[in-house]
């Protein structure tokens, strides 16, 4: 076995630390070209990843980059820096450890390129940026190891695909580079291994002892949960009691808006003035750092948080995790529980708090799955080509390249292993000429092929623009929120532009746990003052949505068929019984359709239990059919079990809407023109570099200069429907949607067995759908005209005019 440097071993001994078996094993196998470690959170995973580096660097290493560490979160990189520097410094090793993220200063970044530290901690985007410079080869010369932390999270997103293309590039620069992936418990380790390793090289998997089973249960609450709503506020007294009984509690919510509302109520009920904080991704960096520091110092008793704390940040003494709202999938629940009790070999403790009665059922199903050790998940398919387009541009920014070499390099990333040359050439052509059927840019190509066959940027200044647009995270347009004061305003966070547009001066909303009053919009900043004289509106944030897995849906449907539910709390039992009496409970081989008026609109609710993607597709199909029949659908929301469609007219006979015939033709029609496609196009066009999110020196005002990506979509659809970006959009939309076959199958299976219930008001089972975020607008041109006309009449009346 490889030994640690003597001073470090000595330091470990002094601390009374001994290595876990998987840490020793990682050290022993440090020469493997690719290695995946799967260990539960709290198992010393990150240290296991770094031990070989520390062993190889020794007491006084030569200058030069040895190990590159990549994590999905900036906060995680900063946290690892703190934790790694301590043993290194106290053991007197002269190893330089630095991080490099979007928050690193310009001077520091420049220096890091010329004189890199021994260990550089960074994110996928910062790595892509480093690779886009001409001096990338020099920066990375001598690099030995790359550690990808929380690789299970990265493997689910385009950020991971971008990272793997970056590693392919790195491997060309330094062929002997060894790869290490660190992952939490996942359902399919070999898939992650293929994602990590250079294709087609093998990758060994080391699985650490998973430790004792988690201690997880439902929180007992005397009061009944509400019929609908995601807040979990009814449980606040019981939750406060738990906070008092533990050292530090993390209280997870599924969305940022819910976290805000909950924190506000928790604070009002916090009579002992326990120190409690809030943390989510829409808060200003200053606010988040304050909370992170207080947490690290152990001065907070509880943190209300969302997915921004999901990944392996070391929060010290967390001894309880509370999940408010149903965990939408079991894997995430297990990973969240890992937050509690960061000590290996001690069981993690977690409590589930269903936010409403439906979630009581979901939580029961989830607990059953955890007890049986079931993890859910779906494979992700081939690497997205919009990311490839961006990678080609990044490569061009770093210098001239050969297309054949780049093609081979790209295919060494597992997700792109089956990329055809034609698919690659389409992307290259898109980057070079735009790839249009009308060859318009011969004089103004972005990339040129030189006489020696290499490709390069026509205008070297374009490199700057490419660098400014690196990344695959496409945010919804957001506006900053500032608290107005004499010092020019304290940043509080941000809200979605659409939400800001609904505010009138005097309206109040919650952000960072406080109620603020909207004063005015000042150059794209929402100015607010602290004031709590009105019931706050709920700010909308771009929230992460989780899909309930099929396994959970099936368990729930089976539960519905029981004659009674003695295992459920009385309130939930009554709620299900009430649904059974006013309408009915959905069955597996029948389709329940409810129609009812609510809030001035007519609603139709279909309980397909087909999973979120299929329910979303069903929503698009049904609304398209409603459109054809003049029923004026306006929008819909889909969950894993149902789709709720609202419109301007009631659906009196839903049966024909569910006829299977013509389905595929309808499918093709909506595919072209619907909002989901436009949304997908916007994301793919931004990633692929057609739409630039950032332009050097763009003025803050003059927003009429930019125009909606929908215009580009409509133009391409009309004049160049087979353009590569339209192909990519279809690929990406289908990736996010169905499994179209599953809907055909469901409609075939339930044909003639549609149970229609026309009801006077919202039913118990439909109520939760009204709080579903991510509503899809579907109104067609005529419906929109009708809506606008109605609104105009109302405005005229308000203004005292007659139309």
């Amino acid at each position, binding site marked *: 076995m490889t030994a640690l440097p003597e001073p470090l071993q000595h330091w470990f001994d002094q601390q009374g630390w001994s290595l876990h078996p998987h840490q020793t094993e990682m050290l022993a196998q440090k020469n493997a070209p690719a290695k995946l470690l799967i260990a539960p959170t709290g198992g010393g995973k990150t240290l296991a990843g770094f031990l070989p580096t520390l062993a190889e660097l020794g007491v006084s290493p030569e200058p030069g980059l040895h190990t590159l560490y990549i994590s999905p979160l900036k906060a995680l990189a900063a946290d690892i820096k703190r934790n790694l520097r301590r043993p290194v410094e106290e053991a007197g090793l002269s190893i330089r450890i630095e991080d490099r993220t979007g928050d690193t200063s310009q001077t520091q970044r420049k220096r890091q390129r010329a004189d890199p530290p021994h260990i550089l901690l960074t994110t996928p985007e910062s790595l892509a940026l480093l690779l886009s410079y001409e001096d990338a080869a020099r920066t990375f010369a001598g690099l030995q190891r790359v550690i990808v932390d929380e690789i299970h999270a990265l493997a689910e997103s385009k950020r991971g695909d971008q990272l793997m293309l970056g590693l392919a590039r790195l491997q060309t620069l330094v062929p002997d580079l060894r790869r290490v992936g660190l992952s939490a418990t996942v359902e399919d380790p070999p898939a992650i291994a293929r994602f990590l390793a250079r294709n087609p090289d093998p990758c060994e998997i080391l699985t650490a002892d998973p430790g004792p089973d988690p201690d997880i249960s439902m929180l007992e609450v005397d009061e009944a949960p509400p019929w609908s709503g995601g807040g979990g506020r009814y449980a606040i007294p019981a939750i406060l009691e738990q906070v008092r009984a533990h050292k530090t509690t993390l209280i997870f919510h599924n969305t940022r808006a819910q976290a805000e509302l909950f924190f506000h109520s928790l604070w009002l009920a916090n009579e002992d003035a326990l120190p409690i904080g809030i943390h989510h991704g829409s808060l200003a960096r200053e606010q988040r750092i304050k909370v992170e520091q207080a947490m690290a110092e152990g001065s907070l008793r509880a943190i209300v948080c969302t997915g921004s704390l999901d990944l392996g940040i070391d929060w010290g003494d967390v001894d309880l995790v509370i999940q408010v709202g149903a965990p939408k999938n079991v894997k995430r629940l297990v990973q969240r529980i890992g937050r509690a009790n960061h000590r290996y070999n001690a069981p993690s403790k977690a409590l589930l708090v269903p936010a409403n009665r439906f979630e009581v059922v979901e939580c029961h199903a989830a607990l059953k799955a955890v007890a049986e050790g079931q993890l859910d998940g779906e494979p992700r398919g081939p690497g997205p080509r919009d990311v490839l387009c961006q990678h080609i541009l990044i490569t061009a920014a770093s210098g001239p390249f050969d297309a054949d070499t780049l093609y081979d390099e790209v295919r060494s990333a597992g997700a792109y292993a089956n990329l055809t040359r034609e698919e690659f050439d389409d992307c290259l052509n898109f980057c070079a*000429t*735009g790839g*249009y059927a*009308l060859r*318009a*840019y011969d*004089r*103004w190509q*972005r990339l040129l092929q030189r006489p020696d066959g290499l490709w390069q940027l*026509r*205008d070297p*200044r*374009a490199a700057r*623009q490419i660098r400014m647009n690196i990344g695959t995270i496409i945010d919804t347009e957001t506006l900053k929120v500032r608290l107005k004061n004499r010092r020019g305003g304290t940043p509080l966070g941000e809200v979605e532009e*659409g939400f800001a*547009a*609904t*505010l*009138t001066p005097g309206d109040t909303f919650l952000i960072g746990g406080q109620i603020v009053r909207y004063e*005015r*919009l000042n150059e794209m900043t929402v100015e607010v003052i602290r004031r709590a004289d009105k019931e706050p509106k709920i700010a909308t944030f771009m929230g992460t949505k989780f899909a309930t897995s099929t396994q959970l849906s099936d368990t729930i449907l089976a539960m519905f068929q029981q004659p009674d539910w003695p295992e459920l709390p009385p309130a939930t039992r009554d709620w299900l019984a009430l649904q059974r009496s006013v309408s009915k409970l959905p069955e597996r081989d029948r389709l329940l359709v409810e129609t009812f008026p609510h809030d*001035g*609109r007519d609603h139709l609710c279909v309980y397909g239990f087909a999973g979120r993607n299929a329910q979303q597709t069903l929503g698009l199909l049904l609304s398209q059919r409603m459109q054809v029949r003049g029923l004026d659908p*306006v*929008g819909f929301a889909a969950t894993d079990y149902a789709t709720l469609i*609202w419109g*301007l007219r009631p659906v009196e006979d839903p049966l024909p809407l569910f006829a299977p015939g013509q389905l595929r033709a309808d499918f093709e029609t909506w595919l072209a023109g619907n909002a989901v496609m436009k949304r997908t196009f916007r994301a793919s066009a931004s990633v692929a570099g*057609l*739409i*630039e999110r950032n*332009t050097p020196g763009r003025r803050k005002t003059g*927003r*009429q200069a*930019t*125009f*909606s990506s929908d*215009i*580009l979509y409509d*133009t*391409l659809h*009309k*004049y*160049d429907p087979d353009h590569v970006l339209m192909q990519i959009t279809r690929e990406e939309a289908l990736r996010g949607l169905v499994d179209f076959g599953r809907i055909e199958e469901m409609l075939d299976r339930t044909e003639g067995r549609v149970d229609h219930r026309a009801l006077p008001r919202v039913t118990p089972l439909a109520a939760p759908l009204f709080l579903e975020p991510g509503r899809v*607008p579907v109104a067609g*041109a005529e*419906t*929109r*005209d009708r*809506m*606008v*006309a*109605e*609104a*105009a009449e109302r*405005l*005229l009346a*308000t*203004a005292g*005019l007659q*139309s």
Partner: protein
Amino acid sequence: MNMLSFDFAGLELCALPSGALWWPSEQRLFVADLHFGKSERLARRGGTLLPPYEVRETLERLEHDVGETGAKELLCLGDSFDDMTCATQMRPAERTRLQTLQGKVDWHWIAGNHDPNAGIGGGIAVLYVGPLVLRHIAEPGSLPAGIAGELSGHFHPKHHVVTRGGRVARRCFLITPSRIILPAYGAYTGGLALSDPAFAPFLTPDSRAILIGGRPIEVPILLREAAQ
């Protein structure tokens, strides 16, 4: 045709869904901000390569409107070209198409900030047509003596209304008692909300917006709303 007629400074005018303004009694058609060549200009400057179809699309809209109305005269209120190079380097097929259209109507270019030399002789900044004054950018304050109204472009106005089905934003005409600011007509143009301070000098309590993009429809502009 789907148009909305309204009274302005004693004249009967019509808003077209495309954003053109039609004066039936004089058979004049007004359009603003065509921005021909926008994708070409971006590409020339080393930027992104947008779908190069906006000139075609804008020409198609013009051909349609001229055909439907039977206009005898077409007046472009500036920023017809995204810059002067676009004006001289139009693709041959598109230039021919533009010239064909120019052969059908009496055509006038007014210069804008993007195309200061547009038109024969170059750079007509102001044009008087009957009781109307035409320019690219509206001038705050009172109109010249003997003039009843001003038509202009430049700002690309858009406005939103809150409907039963959610918020809908559309390009619009801004109409005050003495001026009309036309929406941008070109295919690749965005909009500036009427709530933007740029519109403040022109808004009066009885200002109206005519939303286009669908069936043209008139809405009052609630100043409180616009001032946000």
